[in-house]
């Protein structure tokens, strides 16, 4: 009997012991910098660069990949709660969450590093790339002004056109205005070619497209006023934004199934010549190259609705890393990121991964199509750099409303009224919480 009890106790202690031992921190190599990232397409290039850095400096770099981005984001949030973040990581959330990481002492302020040597590091970067990582003096998140991240590349989202398909349909000039675009779509449809394809099954892409037209139709100030609740979604300018989707849908501009299409499938459609236009980010250059190296295409801004205002597209830092403020190897981590964002390494990354480099000096290394994206970096904007952001449930109602319009279920007016109703309800909730 005693033997049995002793055996059971031993098993219990072993199980509990193993569990807690397993939960504890793994032994850490004190000379090693640990990086967690989510960029599947860049993992090999990062590994190569890490190897080079180790050979040059003797500092070991361990790079771990956690994909897809949703999984990565969950891991970062869980690690922040457990205080087990690596030395270098990325925050894929909106600026409000980025601000929380800073406020809870999880992200290092890199401003002084950027300002060293007369601001050499800061000046080497695309200003738009730094904006995502910058908190200005008037930021609404109560974060100390400064730069908190290092952009690895820049990106922007534009329209792409297949030159061969346009020629086949007799479209001689690339459409610059909305009417020209509709005329081009008509010609394309008449020869059995689909117009615009995009992965709006990932609904933020449709949101970005609508945002482009909102900037073009009413400008940034009115959008910010809407987010603050000063302008309703039933305003004529917002109705114009919703009508863009109705007009395009009625003109047969969208490829079949666009509202539930994953972007990977949309990329395949464009790469295989199933649609003449695509709405996609600059990362697509790498994707299209893998899918169809002979694809003859170029990039263009979405055709303007309002000729008097610029067409603003989403863009800025594509991927950024931050340094763990609580890391014992903070200085080494910063030194590595400085090296990684230097011209030579950025040129290597651009060549290998066909992404736009964050370092302006590395632009010479990029393929021709990518330079079309690089040229319009000044036209970019992004929710993470806006002073105000829309409430999440309003954004959801807005995006789902866009889908309803595209599939012909609701009119722009109905959607505008519904979004406004959600806006009022959410603002009421916010007021009650305060």
């Amino acid at each position: 009997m005693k033997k049995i009890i002793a055996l059971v106790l031993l098993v219990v202690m072993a199980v509990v012991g193993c569990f807690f031992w397993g939960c504890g921190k793994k032994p850490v190599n004190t000379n090693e910098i640990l990086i967690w990232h989510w960029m599947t397409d860049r993992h090999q290039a990062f590994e190569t660069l890490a190897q080079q850095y180790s050979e040059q400096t003797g500092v070991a770099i361990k790079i771990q990949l956690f994909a897809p981005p949703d999984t990565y984001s969950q891991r970062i949030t869980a690690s922040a709660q457990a205080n087990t973040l690596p030395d270098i990581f990325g925050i894929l959330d909106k600026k409000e969450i980025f601000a929380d990481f800073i406020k809870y002492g999880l992200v290092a302020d890199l401003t002084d590093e950027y300002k060293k040597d007369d601001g050499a590091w800061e000046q080497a970067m695309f200003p738009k790339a730094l904006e995502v990582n910058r908190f200005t003096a008037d930021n609404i998140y109560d974060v100390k002004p400064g730069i908190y991240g290092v952009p690895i590349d820049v990106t922007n989202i534009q329209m792409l056109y297949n030159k061969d398909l346009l020629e086949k349909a007799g479209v001689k000039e690339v459409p610059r205005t909305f009417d020209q675009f509709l005329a081009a779509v008509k010609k394309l449809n008449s020869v059995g070619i689909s117009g615009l394809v995009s992965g709006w099954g990932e609904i933020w892409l449709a949101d970005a497209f609508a945002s482009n037209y909102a900037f073009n139709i009413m400008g940034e100030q009115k959008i910010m006023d809407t987010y603050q609740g000063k302008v309703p979604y039933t305003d004529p300018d917002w109705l114009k934004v919703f009508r863009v989707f109705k007009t395009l849908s009625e003109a047969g501009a969208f490829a079949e199934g666009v509202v539930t299409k994953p972007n990977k499938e949309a990329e395949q459609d464009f790469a295989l010549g199933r649609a003449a236009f695509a709405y996609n980010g600059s990362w697509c250059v790498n994707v299209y190259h893998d899918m169809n190296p002979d694809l003859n295409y170029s990039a263009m801004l979405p055709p303007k609705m309002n000729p008097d205002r610029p067409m603003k597209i989403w863009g800025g830092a594509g991927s950024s890393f931050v340094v763990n403020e609580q890391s014992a190897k903070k200085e080494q981590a910063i030194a590595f990121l400085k090296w990684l964002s230097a011209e030579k390494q950025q040129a290597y990354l651009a060549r290998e991964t066909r992404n736009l480099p964050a370092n302006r000096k590395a632009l010479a290394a990029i393929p021709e199509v990518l330079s079309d994206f690089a040229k319009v970096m000044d036209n970019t904007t992004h929710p993470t750099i806006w002073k105000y952001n829309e409430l999440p449930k309003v954004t959801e109602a807005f995006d789902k409303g866009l889908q309803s319009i595209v599939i012909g279920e609701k009119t722009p007016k109905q959607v505008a009224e519904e979004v406004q109703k959600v806006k009022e309800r959410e603002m009421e909730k916010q007021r009650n919480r305060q």
Partner: protein
Amino acid sequence: MAKRQKMSSIKLADISENYLFILPAVIIFAIFYIYPFIDIINLSLHEWKGIGPKVFVGLRNFKELMSDKIWWKSIWNATYITLWALTFQNVLAFMLALACDREIRFKKFYRVVFFIPPVLSQVVVGLIWRWILNAGKQDGQYIGLLNHLLDSIGLHHLTNDWLSDPATALTCIAIVHCWMGFGWGFIMLLAGLQTIDKQLYEAAKVDGASSWSTFWNVTIPMMVPVILVVVILTVLGSMQAFILVLSMVGQGLVHHTDVPVTRILGAMQGTKEFGYACAMGVNFAIILIAVSALMKMGSNKLKQA
């Protein structure tokens, strides 16, 4: 007196021995099941973005949830998929199980073939069916197999954008879910059929019972326990289906394809409302427990009958 004391100490030792044996399992269960469950209930009473302090809000998340029409629509959508699974999927599984229980050629081959869909990844199945239901065209020809087939047999008017049409999207998902799930039901029902004593069928034959009468009076009563297990597993599995939804329609077609788990995921990943997401989870768990309890009560009554 001494004898009684000795007896009670032996009894106590026996009881402690029993408890000690189950202690490792209890510890693991408590850490991995009870603690997270209690934590979810606790989180559902808070407002939390996943980082930083949690603000206690009492039952506010639940109050908001009660008036969240999209949440209740997602529950209805899951119920719709479940109804398809309970009827179409299980009837198909039962019919095929009955066929394979007879002496037919290639019986073993059919068993293997019918069990292939359930062992495939839901993501892969979703993507394959996306291709089958694709409404796009290339060089004037449909890319998707279904539309291509309809077009080639002269039923062009029936071609459709299946996954982007509110009238068909959820039904398509439900049918694919049934296609994936009928193999489980098939295997379980076939196993159940094979446990029925063949003498009962012979006795029925001797008594001159027709095939239908034998099926209704012998097969069905003997299969009731197995059918109930299949029904319970179908309900729980179908109500929680979401991977197939994500792989077939991404983030959804308006709210026509939302199911509870995609709403919970959206609240956690999209809007970072962890407290609200946990409230959804608790609410959903209560619904599933209630449904399971009702089915258990129903099954007890059936057994008594």
